[in-house]
């Protein structure tokens, strides 16, 4: 399998503290949906920021498509824990922010933004402001913004943690469809086992700054919400739960 995003023996410590990430190696294949799961404080968000170039590792190497990652680059999309929209911009302008920051807007890019909003069910809300949207709609705008440049990889940091269960499952379904249609690889942080199993092709369990368990989720695509109630699904969840308990 070609190595698309590659982390090799990555180590990181915040100044004056012990290592948060202790020599993690991780490979993500093109189009792979990879979930990183673990309890609060296990270093998963730090690892995500390292992969995205927001932090620099003290040792180890990170490469995207064979090129060393030394900082954020245009081939990456990032979705934060909260939607982090700019209140003074409309939905459309928020989605187009990554483009307008770097030059003139072209008609094709506006069309691309409209397509994304359409796929995320926000077409009619393009001229609204973030405060006029529900939490789920705001998360959708944040996803559209991260995908506006069609990045080959998307980093997501517990983006749905604050949403209610139904809204969350709708967003999971739409995110999967969108990433599949664009062939986007995803590194997705969560602490929710069911979310990880539903979304991921591969799950890594993180504990104390290291990856302790890996699971390939060989459930069929496209995944439908009904999948959550099947024995296969529950077996995967149980395995992950056991892995998390076993190392606690």
């Amino acid at each position, binding site marked *: 399998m070609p190595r698309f995003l590659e982390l090799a023996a990555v180590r990181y410590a915040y100044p004056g503290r012990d290592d948060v990430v202790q020599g993690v190696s991780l490979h993500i294949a093109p189009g792979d949906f990879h979930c990183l799961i673990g309890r609060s404080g296990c270093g998963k968000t730090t690892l995500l920021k390292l992969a995205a170039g927001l932090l620099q590792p003290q040792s180890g190497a990170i490469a995207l498509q064979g090129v060393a990652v030394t900082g*954020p*680059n*245009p081939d990456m999309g990032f979705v934060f824990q*909260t939607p982090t929209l*700019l209140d*003074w911009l409309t939905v459309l302008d928020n989605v187009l922010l990554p483009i307008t*920051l*770097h030059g003139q807007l072209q008609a094709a890019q506006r069309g691309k933004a409209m397509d994304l909003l359409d796929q995320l069910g926000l077409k009619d809300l393009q001229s609204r402001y973030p405060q006029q949207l529900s939490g789920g709609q705001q998360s959708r705008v944040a996803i559209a913004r991260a995908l506006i440049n069609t990045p080959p990889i998307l980093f997501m940091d517990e983006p749905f943690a604050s949403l209610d269960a139904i809204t969350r499952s709708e967003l999971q379904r739409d995110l999967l469809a969108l990433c599949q249609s664009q062939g986007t690889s995803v590194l997705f942080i969560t602490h929710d086992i069911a979310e990880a199993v539903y979304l991921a092709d591969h799950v890594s369990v993180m504990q104390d700054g290291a990856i302790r368990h890996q699971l390939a989720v060989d459930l069929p695509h496209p995944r439908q919400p009904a999948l959550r109630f099947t024995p296969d699904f529950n077996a995967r969840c149980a395995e992950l739960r056991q892995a998390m308990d076993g190392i606690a």
Partner: protein
Amino acid sequence: MRREHWVSILLGLGFILLWEVWVHMAQTSALVLPAPSVVWQSLWQGLASGYLWPHIVSSTRAVVLGLLLGGGVGFVGGMVLGESARLRGILMPYVVISQVVPKLALAPLFIVWFGFGTLPIVVMTGWRCFFPLLENTATSLQEVDPQRLELFRMLRASRWQTLWRLKVRTGLPSIMAGVRVAVVLAWVGAVVAEFIGASKGLGALIIAAQGSMDTPLMFAVLVLITVLGLVFYKFAEWLERRLLRLPVDSQKKDEK
């Protein structure tokens, strides 16, 4: 208009009426406390004869220029100090000293430096009003949501873009609050500076009226300064609403 507004206006009118009645009843000398009707007469005469206008123009010009100077220095200085912790550490004590020093006592020195005329008054006004803008700008730039900063880093925004398109924009409510305070201080600064070293302007006119024991004129000028200060304040408020205009905000205000 809502009921509180009417009550508020009635309260003011009631106060003026009481004042009028009291002056007549107590036979107070117009030298000490002129009745509102006398003040109004003095004001109207001054406006109709054209006597007050050059002073109004002179003071307004000084305030506008002083605001531009002080506001410009305050805003740019606030951005510089907000961006650089090192410069903040070096310069902030002196900025504070410049505000604590009794500015009024320095006015005679200003006249020595800048001569009589508009310049010392503009400088004094600018000095008076740069501080709230500097303070508010510098503080607000440091209070940006760290996740938004990370977003701009992720989007590879330049330092200038992050400053202008994120920090200044996020700090705008606070910066505009600084502008509102500056507008009020500018009128205080200009009038006080005119007390000391001007032959023209509303502050100079108060001193002149005092010299000729024309108390009604003093009150008339006070009214003028108050009205002009209010107009400037309302303009700052209007500007703030325009700059911060969002449909959601206006909806919220309507609901209140």
